[in-house]
């Protein structure tokens, strides 16, 4: 057996059904072995697309996503995808070819120091120098990627290792003495957490991406305690958004209620989140009167930005049920009533007094699509989608949170469609972002996946434009796209995908259900109001209590945004 066959056999052993990749010189032996393998291969048109697909495949299914790339440019093209997966704790195994061992370090054709380059953007990486190490390394790669706090792992395999003969066993022992993730929370810490929660009068729970693995545990915990729940961008779907306890998203573009809850609470129960700066705003103004209980599987996240008074290292699936067992229904009715009053006063609202606006398109999509998988690109449309189209199921809102990677949404929609066949995927995109991996329309066309791409086309880099309007004296530097955007409907058609340009409300109402009824991909290009802004907004560097409420204000006028004073 050749090393390349060992690679494919090991993937089969790990239950890999699909690999996203692009061939090239240094990975040709593996592609040759793939030819005889039962593993399905999805040919992407750019390796970054492949990495995002593998990432979304994991996010949507909980099964490790796998991507292939060749040496040099192939592997460097993966880097953005790996960094995206790393920031959002997504289990990906990337396998790259490399030049033959004797040429490594000589600036050979299509050679790059992939091991060195990808180290900082992966959970771990390997350079395999001996074919006998392949079974162990690949086993370890899957183990590291999928256990503890998940993350991407890269395995770099030089071409001569792929071609080397191997007749040893494929079973391999994992040998990782330095890697022992903590799943079981410390009993004393859980007790302390329970004591703190019992004492609280105004507690609030914030669920992050870690909640995607523990939706039942989160629901049961809330059921028992009645604690109000905030879900971060990564936590969308970990708790149903329609529930009374749900306060929506916190932070820079969070809801008024969520941010007020944070400012006024006396206890935060952080569950599987890392208190990212987009969530906290200015840390010194974040929950100034709160005791912080922080549960996370990664000890390095505890007290990184927000000091945890009661840290609990462990898996939510272990910690939450044990914590729940020590808690009664919390006597916090006045607090719940206060939050309900804020929620009633500040519902999601927007002005639809212009032509088509982004928010109403998203709302129409939600009404027509119901329960589905949503992927997003990055920008204003992403925030509108997070607020107006939060999924009710876990693992279903797929977005680049930490790295904020434009170009993520389209390949992510494809990866998610492969992960959950038969389910509808809606990709909410912007006209700027979607062009960053637009070549993947070819992959989409080939596999006829049930993906509706909804481009909210305002002819602008909308989020940058919003910042320029608010913080850069309306100096709109390099954000105008409309004069050189393609005709997206025609572009889709050029790839063999049905495409529609949509200019008005009536047309939108008609075309959305039609598109969602199709079996294959459809691209809808909505021309929307160009100067729309995402409200509320916490300016960068400000506290979440200093949000600009804008359109969310009950009697909002066209005037300058009102700055809300919130008692701290």
């Amino acid at each position, binding site marked *: 057996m050749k090393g390349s066959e060992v690679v494919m056999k090991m993937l089969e052993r790990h239950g890999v059904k699909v690999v996203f990749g692009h061939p090239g010189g240094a990975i040709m032996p593996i592609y040759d072995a793939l030819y005889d393998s039962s593993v399905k291969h999805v040919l992407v048109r750019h390796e970054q697309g492949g990495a995002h697909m593998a990432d979304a495949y994991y996010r949507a299914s909980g099964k490790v996503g796998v991507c292939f790339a060749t040496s040099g440019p192939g592997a460097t093209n993966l880097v953005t995808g790996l960094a995206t997966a790393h920031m959002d704790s997504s289990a990906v195994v990337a396998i790259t070819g490399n030049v033959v061992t004797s040429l490594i370090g000589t600036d050979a054709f299509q050679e790059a120091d992939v091991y*060195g380059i990808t180290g900082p953007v992966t959970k771990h990486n390997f350079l395999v120098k001996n074919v006998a190490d392949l079974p162990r390394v690949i086993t370890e790669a899957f183990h590291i990627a999928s256990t503890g706090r998940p993350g991407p792992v890269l395995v770099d395999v030089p071409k001569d290792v792929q071609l080397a003969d191997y007749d040893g066993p494929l079973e391999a022992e994992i040998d990782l003495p*330095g*890697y022992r993730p903590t799943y079981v929370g410390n009993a004393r810490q859980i007790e302390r957490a329970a004591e703190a929660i019992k004492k609280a009068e105004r507690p609030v729970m914030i669920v992050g991406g870690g909640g995607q693995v523990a939706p039942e545990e989160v629901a049961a915990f809330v059921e028992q305690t009645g604690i109000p729940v905030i879900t971060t961008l990564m936590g969308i779907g970990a708790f149903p958004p329609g529930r009374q306890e749900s306060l929506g998203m916190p932070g820079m573009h969070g809801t008024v209620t969520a941010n007020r809850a944070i400012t006024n609470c006396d206890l935060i129960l952080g569950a599987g989140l890392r208190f990212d700066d987009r969530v906290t705003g200015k840390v010194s103004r974040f929950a100034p009167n709160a005791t912080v209980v922080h549960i996370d599987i990664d*000890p390095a996240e505890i007290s990184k930005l927000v000091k945890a008074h009661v840290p609990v290292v462990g898996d939510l699936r272990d910690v939450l049920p044990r914590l729940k067992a020590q808690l009664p229904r919390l006597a916090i009715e006045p607090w719940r009533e206060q939050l309900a009053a804020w929620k009633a006063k500040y519902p999601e609202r927007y002005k639809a007094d212009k032509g088509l606006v982004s928010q109403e398109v998203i709302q129409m999509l939600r009404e027509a699509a119901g329960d589905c998988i949503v992927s997003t690109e990055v920008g204003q449309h992403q925030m509108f989608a997070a607020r107006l189209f939060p999924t009710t199921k876990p693992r279903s809102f797929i977005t680049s949170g930490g790295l904020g990677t434009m170009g993520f949404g389209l390949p992510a929609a494809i990866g998610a469609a492969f992960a959950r066949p038969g389910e509808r995927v809606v990709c909410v995109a912007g006209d700027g972002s979607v062009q960053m991996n637009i070549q993947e329309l070819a992959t989409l066309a080939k596999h006829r996946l049930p993906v509706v791409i909804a481009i909210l086309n305002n002819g602008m880099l909308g989020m940058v434009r919003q910042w320029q309007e608010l913080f850069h004296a309306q100096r709109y530097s390099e954000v105008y796209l409309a004069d050189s955007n393609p005709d997206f409907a025609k572009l889709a058609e050029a790839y063999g995908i049905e495409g529609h340009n949509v200019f008005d409300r009536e047309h939108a109402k008609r075309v959305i259900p039609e598109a969602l009824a199709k079996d294959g991909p459809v691209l809808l290009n909505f021309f929307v109001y160009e100067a729309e802004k995402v409200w509320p907004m916490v300016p960068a560097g400000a506290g979440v209590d200093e949000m600009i409420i804008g359109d969310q204000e009950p009697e909002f006028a066209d005037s300058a945004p009102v700055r809300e004073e919130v008692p701290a």
Partner: protein
Amino acid sequence: MTVSRHVLSVTVRDQPGVLLRIAGLFARRGYNIESLSVAQTERPGLSRTTFVVTGEDATVEQVTKQLQKLIDVLTVVDHSGSDYVSRELMLIKVAVRSPDDRVEIRQIAQDFRARIVDVARQALVFEVTGDERKLQAFINQMRPFGIVELVRTGMVALERTEQEEKERGRAKAA
């Protein structure tokens, strides 16, 4: 915000690229590594590295946790605030300009228990071992004679046994 000097002992698997990962973590936080020494330990396949860095305590604690996260890192110990022994080795070449100098230099070296490892007409090379203060004092004493060049290994440190036992007890209790 308390800034202080930290001596970190990191036990790592003897793998290519380990140092790159560790150094990368410090570099990302903008820390200059003041000294670094690496060598194999009593256990085959494991190396022990000793870092000296100066930084904000909270950030160093964060970096320590990040180090602990690296797959090839087995243990991380921050010696600051605990009782430890540290040593460093220095080779120092001192200029000899006159017979009187030679006598005086050798006398000082004797006081420091520095060993002569190379003798020439115009220079002497000493091997000095000790903690940082001792090495610095020796350098200061030799400076008037003229230091031709010197090289230091960087600090290595071990926790004192009593302290280590206490730490273990605490870890078990936690």
